[in-house]
């Protein structure tokens, strides 16, 4: 009698514990699998530049732009005294603000889609040949 009472109490508890443990394991497993694709840290170049990275880019003024005077982003002229960004490689120029708003989303030249070679500016000093 006593044994059957103990069994009647013990078995459901044991069963529920097992079910609970399996459930926890599944959650952990799902969570782990879900995290895997995000695990490799994406380089900043694929998501846009941070403000710290933007600060490292060279700034110029309208009078030093070599190609167009009209900023293709806002369609206003880049005046000689206005701050500007000139993309290295393709030399397309834009207002500083216009270029940076875009670069913080996508580090490619708006005009030719030339990818901004961030390595030029963000390489750690020890890789610098100088």
């Amino acid at each position, binding site marked *: 009698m006593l044994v059957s009472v103990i069994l009647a109490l013990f078995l459901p508890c044991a069963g529920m514990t097992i079910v609970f443990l399996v459930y926890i394991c599944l959650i952990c497993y799902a969570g782990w699998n879900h995290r895997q694709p995000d695990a490799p840290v994406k380089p900043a170049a694929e998501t846009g530049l941070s403000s710290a990275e933007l600060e490292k880019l060279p700034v110029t003024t309208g009078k030093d732009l070599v190609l167009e005077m009209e900023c*293709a*982003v*806002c*369609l*206003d002229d880049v005046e000689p005294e206005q701050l500007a960004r000139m993309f290295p490689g393709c030399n397309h120029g834009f207002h500083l603000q216009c270029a940076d*708003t*875009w670069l913080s989303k996508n580090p490619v030249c*708006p*005009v030719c889609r030339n990818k901004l070679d961030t390595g030029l500016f963000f390489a750690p000093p020890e890789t610098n040949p100088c």
Partner: protein
Amino acid sequence: MANSNLPRRIIKETQRLLSEPAPGISASPSEDNMRYFNVMILGPSQSPYEGGVFKLELFLPEEYPMAAPKVRFLTKIYHPNIDKLGRICLDILKDKWSPALQIRTVLLSIQALLSAPNPDDPLSENIAKHWKSNEAEAVETAKEWTRLYASGA
């Protein structure tokens, strides 16, 4: 009101669109929302859409020009890259958007898409399948739909 804070770029683009419209394309802003454009594209010659007048809607989101305009066909069209809701599969409207593109260039690209359907990157699976299995017949259907739905009447 949405129009009170309209960026200068949008005003400039609108003025240029109205003063120098691209051939076969017209776009005019709605009176009560300057970010909403009523667009008409003529079906390009030598394409199954020739003779058709296609209505589209174009909306410039708040982030424009940092984000692409939202464009949709209002006229029913039989095209592998346009679905039955009028949504358009075009890279420059998605990940290939750039702020140097404009309303005009977007509409010219859509006009070019009518001349060059791309069934390998479909939005309408069935139409793309039709296009690949029997292009002549699919082109006939596209012409038929143009007559039925885009006659401009």
